[in-house]
């Protein structure tokens, strides 16, 4: 496996009326060919921003990338100009945007929207592009694709739009697919179908996928590795097994334990993580999770932890991993419980 997308030490900030907010703070990760990296984490933690930074699609007027590199193969995408990016976007790296409702042009038929990228990057005729668009729509499970290519996004249900967005993204067989919550609006059967499709695509083309999602089930199904984000930082990375069975960061624990379990009685309340996410406009001292962490120590409020290497793939940034810290046990469910239905 070749490591061909490396994001290192990315700092991104937005100017708002509340002052500058540092949305990404030293985000680093890499992606190998043919691999799926899932990014999970708090909503608002910067997952979408990370993806947009890679694509260089942040809103120009109020965002700035302060630091870091995005190495694609051996070039730094952040140094690319618009022209060079245009070549890359859609063909080498493509993205499915989070919101299916607004990410499609309301005044262009879905077919045209799919064909557009195709015709931009591949020298094919209109007819071929149309056939391909219909095929793509069928692939993502839209019935009656021949007729529906001519329809407009508002005539599609949310889930259908999302599938259209996916069709657009995979149209040119990209090397890297940034999928920002590609299945949130889909029901499970279609979701399964789409995930299958993505997997096939991956196998065929050796595509690297960054999958941003909240659905840990999807993560379990799809991901090879998982990165957990919190407040603009990656606080833990590891293979999917490592994250699910041996998570080391208290936030990851919190995430995993707040899921509903099919075997648990439904009257039992879910266990969310207490508190609310930090205000990114302030440069806080210490670990950003410290205020919500039940295991926090004094040091956590003072110094921010550095990634600790736990295995070849597994890193976590937490003071608990320091030798001096008391050993704490993760909550009961983690790693032990069988989720079978």
């Amino acid at each position, binding site marked *: 496996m070749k490591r061909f997308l490396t994001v290192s030490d990315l700092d991104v900030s937005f100017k708002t009326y509340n002052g500058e907010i540092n949305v990404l703070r030293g985000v680093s990760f890499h992606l190998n060919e043919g691999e799926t990296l899932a990014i999970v984490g708090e909503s608002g933690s910067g997952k979408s921003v990370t993806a947009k930074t890679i694509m260089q699609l942040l809103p120009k007027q109020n965002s700035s990338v302060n630091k870091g590199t995005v190495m694609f193969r051996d070039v730094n995408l952040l140094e690319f100009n618009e022209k060079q990016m245009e070549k890359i976007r859609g063909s080498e790296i493509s993205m499915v945007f989070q919101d299916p409702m*607004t990410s499609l*042009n309301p005044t262009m038929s879905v077919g045209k929207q799919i064909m557009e990228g195709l015709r931009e990057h591949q020298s094919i005729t209109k007819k071929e592009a149309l056939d391909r668009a219909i095929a793509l729509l069928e692939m993502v499970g839209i019935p009656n694709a021949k007729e529906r290519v001519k329809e*407009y996004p508002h005539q599609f249900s949310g889930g259908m739009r999302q599938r259209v967005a996916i069709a657009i993204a995979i149209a040119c067989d990209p090397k890297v697919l940034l999928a920002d919550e590609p299945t949130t609006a889909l029901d499970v059967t279609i979701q399964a179908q789409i995930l299958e499709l993505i997997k096939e695509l991956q196998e065929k083309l050796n595509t690297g996928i960054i999958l941003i999602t909240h659905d840990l089930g999807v993560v379990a199904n799809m991901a090879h590795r998982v990165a957990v984000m919190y407040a603009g930082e990656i606080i833990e990375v590891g293979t999917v097994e490592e994250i699910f069975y041996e998570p080391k960061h208290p936030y990851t624990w919190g995430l995993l334990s707040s899921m509903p379990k099919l075997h648990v009685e439904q009257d039992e309340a879910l266990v969310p993580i207490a508190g609310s996410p930090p205000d990114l406009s302030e440069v806080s001292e210490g670990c950003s999770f410290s205020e919500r962490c039940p295991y926090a120590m004094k040091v956590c409020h003072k110094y921010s932890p550095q990634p600790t290497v736990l295995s070849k793939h597994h890193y976590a940034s937490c003071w608990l991993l320091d030798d001096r810290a008391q050993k704490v046990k993760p909550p009961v469910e983690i790693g032990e419980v069988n989720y079978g239905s």
Partner: protein
Amino acid sequence: MWRYVFSRLISVFTALFIIVTLTFLLMQLLPGTPYGNTDELTDHQIELLNQKYGLDQPVAIQYVKYLGNLLQGDLGISFKYAGRSVNDVIAERIGPSALIGFQGLVFGTIVGLLLGIISALKHNTFLDYGAVIVAVLGMSIPSFIFAALMQYYIGVKLGWLPPALWEGYQNTIMPSIALSVIVIATVARFIRSEMLEVLGQDYVLTSRAKGISRKKVIVRHVLRNALIPVLTMLAPLTVNLLTGTLVIEKIFAVPGIGEQFTMSIMLNDYSVIMGITLFYSVVFIIIIFLVDLLYGVVDPRIRLDGGVQ
């Protein structure tokens, strides 16, 4: 769709009917006679004239007669251009008006689009301010001043184009440009404002994520979504341009219809007034109708036949 077009047609005819009726009635109130200067005509003679033209009859009868002729496509005979039929007067004059109007519209739209796009893309830069100022000058300085300046400098001093008259294609260039000024301003301003709105939308990101160049994104995605208000504003402008504009036609001595209209109202040339009003209203209603249909083409979400619920 057809049902909609049909019901729309009915209401359009109703509107036309009301326009014709009201104009006919209001016209009766205009002071004076259609015979021009009647200083030296005796009362008896005016009576004779009224009889001859049927103006001695009650308004209601005149009106019914007018409608009758109208249904047969006969707009009557001009008073001022004695003996010439209004159909002819309009037919002869509409060509030049429509030609320079159309050229002005096309030219203005193209230049306006370019200016507007530059403005929006270079938002709040000097290019933007430059384009804004050009557009604002275009709308705040009346077109006849541009026309006169052009005529003097390009037509007389430089001699590049004929200063006026209607002799060949070159004669259409300056009037068209003069007419385009307001179009440029309109399109540039509206495109700028709407594009800024649209550029912030998510689907613009999607299309850019496809690797479409900014230029193409603008042309294919942004422009179209920014088009609705431009269309709305251009509609009446188009009507005005195509049906002739008084000053520009006067300055460039273009034998157009705009000048004719004012003239006939001033001289009570009843049949010409009615004829041009009708003509104008039909063009107006058709263009507005087309624009309404275009709304739906430009933005398929718009459905005119549906109410809120």
